[in-house]
């Protein structure tokens, strides 16, 4: 060895005279060589690293003599070099490694691999992707929910899940059913987006805890909690179509236990737009005032948490012909117009108690009182509904022998008083009182590894639906790593509020008739459906990038349905009990990938086969695209020290052709094609965060400027017998741009 070094030294010194070479080996305490240890001369920048055998060699400048040898996870050693002898450096392992922070950007929408139900959570980040404005618009970046185009008269964007409209979805605010009955048509637009903390979307039957009404799925939204809220939040929004929105939140914490937030929302649209030149406003003008005062009491030591919500909302909308003036033209044939005024009052309370000695055991008690009053007219049709409801739910959670076996049980009570008057081709008072009482039990098993199930059932007595049992079952299995298979089956039953849910049809010259008279709900029978679902998720690395594939297949099979038939005759709406088959089959394939850090791509293909047996035959559901394609690209820059960041978001939606309601009996000029053409809509948004407290955004909806031009049949004579403004398959306004800002005090 000595000879070798001598030889090398001789050789090198002959090349680079006066330079000494130091050689050595770096090993750990077990004499295992360490690869990649850093060897540098103290106070210098010249250094080297060890090779896979732990060997290194380094030139020794005359002015340095102390070598520093360091290796991650080992103590750094210093050695004074006095000769050219080969060195053996033994590094000692450090036992307590310094904490390593691994940062991973949280996805804006999370799909769980471990929850039993097929639930996805949309966080604040996802909600901010669509800056405007209320809950119904929050879903535009989510492929599981389809947002319909608002029709010109109601201005309402209805949502669909698994090919079925929102009445078949149980929509709950913090697990208290909120959008139901009279509020079905507009309810989502009465919840400002900035109030919402997160949204949970459950596909398929869902839990029995919140009721028997859900058929295609459940949407639950959580409102910001006063205890974690910031003292002040401001959001201002304005758009090219003269829609302005203002949101302010004021939070105050009285103590570590008691806190409150006051949410104030106002929106208005004043200018009259008619971009497609049909003589009608493209969007209703109007204003909304919405106030929520939320109180939270938290006593974590004793296990109590309680919320109290007080809410008032007033919304006014005016639509119809551009020159319609309600003061002179209301309910006349001077000009066609419509006004929808809604007032809502809500008081709700939730109290939860967790046993301090047994964190798996808890009580929950929810109570809610709501008054929803809508006064409206559509041309000469009048519709007034006032729903007063009370809902109460008492829950108990605990375990059977251990936390692998959990259960929730409870009872609930619902009371709904409807004052409903319909004045169309007939004038009838449909006022009624509905009440129901039910008990439920839900059992959850988890083997803590790869299998879990939720089996639930409830029994209800309802004065119109009768006494009935609602069973639901969900199973989750992880067949291998990063994958989950879910299956669900469940039954749902509901009372269809045929007028409230189909209000857009009032804006037509159609005659309304209910063909059955022996049922307890407008003469009709309750709707009953079974939902079966299968879902598969696989997360994996594709070329080192985290990706996810989701496949879903759901079937909803109606045993009875309150069929809304606008195909039998273009001058009529018929309501009748289903006689034959009605089903909605949906398939969805979704793929998402983080292309590079902070650049996410998500794409989905959706197939819907929704058919109903009408009096004239089995037909595909009208205004429902069979094929849909979705793409979303989002990029955000790295957050700088003071919080500065850019965020870019782009969404592409392609809708295949949609069947249009039958107009073949109309005179040729008032006939529509059998199918609406396929088209694409693109939305984009750019957000600039200047600091952690201030950001601005600009965006565009439908930037490709696609317009449905024949949105209103017989628009030139709205009091003629062929007038119909309900056949909307695409956007009527064209491209629309907006801007806004958000300001926070933390």
């Amino acid at each position, binding site marked *: 060895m000595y000879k070798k070094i001598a030889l090398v030294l001789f050789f090198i010194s002959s090349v680079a005279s006066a330079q000494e070479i130091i050689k050595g080996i770096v090993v750990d305490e077990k004499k295992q060589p360490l690869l990649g240890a850093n060897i540098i001369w103290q106070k210098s920048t010249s250094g080297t690293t060890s090779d896979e055998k732990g060997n290194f060699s380094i030139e020794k400048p005359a002015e340095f003599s102390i070598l520093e040898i360091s290796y991650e996870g080992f103590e750094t050693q210093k050695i004074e070099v006095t000769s050219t002898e080969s060195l053996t450096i033994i590094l000692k392992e450090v036992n307590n490694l310094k904490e390593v922070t691994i940062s991973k950007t949280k996805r804006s929408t999370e799909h769980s691999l471990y929850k039993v139900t097929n639930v996805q959570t949309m966080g604040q980040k996802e909600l901010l992707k669509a800056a405007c404005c209320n809950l119904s618009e929050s879903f535009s970046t989510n492929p599981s929910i389809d947002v319909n185009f608002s029709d010109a008269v109601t201005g309402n964007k209805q949502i669909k899940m698994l090919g079925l409209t929102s009445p078949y979805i149980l929509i709950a605010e913090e697990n208290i059913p909120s959008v139901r009955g009279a509020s079905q048509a507009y309810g989502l637009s009465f919840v400002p987006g900035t109030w919402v903390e997160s949204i949970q979307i459950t596909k398929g039957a869902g839990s029995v805890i919140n009721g028997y009404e859900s058929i295609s799925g459940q949407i639950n939204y959580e409102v910001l909690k006063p205890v974690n809220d910031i003292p002040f939040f401001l959001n201002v929004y304005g758009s090219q179509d003269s829609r302005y929105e203002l949101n302010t939140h004021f939070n105050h914490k009285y103590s570590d236990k008691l806190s409150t937030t006051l949410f104030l929302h106002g929106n208005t649209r004043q200018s009259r737009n008619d971009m497609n030149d049909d003589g009608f406003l493209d969007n209703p003008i109007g204003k909304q005032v919405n106030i929520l005062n939320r109180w939270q009491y938290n006593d974590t030591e004793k296990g109590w948490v309680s919320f109290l919500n007080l809410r008032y909302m007033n919304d006014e909308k005016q639509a119809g012909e551009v020159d319609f003036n309600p003061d002179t033209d209301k309910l006349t044939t001077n000009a066609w117009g419509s006004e929808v005024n809604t007032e809502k009052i809500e008081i709700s309370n939730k109290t939860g108690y967790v046993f301090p*000695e*047994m*964190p*798996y055991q808890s009580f929950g008690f929810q109570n809610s009182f709501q008054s929803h009053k809508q006064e409206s007219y559509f041309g000469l049709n009048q519709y007034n509904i006032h729903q007063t409801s009370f809902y109460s739910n008492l829950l108990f959670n605990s*375990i059977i*022998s*251990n*936390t*692998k076996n959990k259960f929730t049980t409870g009872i609930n009570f619902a009371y709904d008083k409807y004052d409903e008057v319909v004045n169309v081709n007939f004038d009838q008072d449909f006022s009624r009182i509905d009440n129901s009482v039910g008990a439920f039990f839900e059992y959850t098993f988890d083997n*803590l*590894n790869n299998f879990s199930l939720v089996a639930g059932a409830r029994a209800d007595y309802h004065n119109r639906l009768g006494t009935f049992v609602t069973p639901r079952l969900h199973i989750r299995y992880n067949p291998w790593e990063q994958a989950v298979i879910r299956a669900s089956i469940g039954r749902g039953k509901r009372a269809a509020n045929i007028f409230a849910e189909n209000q857009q049809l009032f804006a037509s010259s159609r005659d309304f008739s209910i063909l059955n008279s022996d049922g307890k709900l407008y003469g009709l029978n309750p709707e009953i459906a079974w939902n079966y679902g299968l879902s598969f998720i696989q997360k994996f690395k594709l070329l080192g990038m985290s990706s996810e594939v989701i496949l879903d297949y759901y079937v909803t099979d109606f045993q009875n349905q309150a069929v809304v038939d606008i195909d039998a005759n273009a001058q009529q709406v018929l309501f009748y009990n289903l006689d034959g088959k009605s089903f909605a089959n949906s398939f969805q394939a979704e793929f998402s990938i983080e292309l590079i850090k902070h650049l996410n791509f998500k794409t989905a293909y959706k197939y819907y086969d929704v058919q109903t047996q009408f009096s004239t035959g089995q037909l595909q559901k009208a205004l429902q695209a069979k094929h849909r394609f979705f793409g979303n690209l989002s990029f955000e820059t790295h957050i700088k020290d003071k919080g500065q960041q850019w965020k870019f978001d782009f969404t592409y939606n392609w809708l295949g052709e949609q069947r249009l309601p039958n107009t073949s009996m109309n005179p040729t000029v008032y006939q529509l094609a059998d199918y609406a053409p396929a088209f694409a809509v693109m939305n984009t948004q750019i957000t600039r965060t200047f600091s952690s407290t201030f950001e601005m955004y600009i965006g565009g909806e439908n930037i490709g400027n696609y317009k449905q031009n024949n949105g209103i049949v017989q628009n030139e004579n709205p009091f003629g017998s062929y007038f119909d403004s309900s056949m909307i398959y695409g956007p009527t306004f064209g491209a629309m741009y907006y801007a806004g800002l958000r300001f926070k005090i933390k």
Partner: protein
Amino acid sequence: MKNIVIAILVAFFSISAVAQEKKSKNKKAEIKVAGNCEMCEKRIEKAAFSVKGVKSADWHADHQDIHLIIDENKCSVEDVAKAIAKVGHDTEIVKAKDEDYERLHGCCNYERL
């Protein structure tokens, strides 16, 4: 030597103190359990639940401990520790046998207590 005597005395007193308490149906306990990964978590919790009377068992990798709620009429913390040691994980009360430790998956070979 002095230290050992103190330790024995302390242990003795704490045992007698426990013995005087009424047996709780929802006794909370936290004991050190060594482990590494998600596989360890599943194994440790499964072992804990295999003991009758364990109502809740939650192992935390970052704190290297398990939070237990047990029915003292049916089992003791020591019973749970034994069951965990049996599947190869050292606890502050009972250590795992070397052969049980060796049987663990490579990524589960934690640093022994």
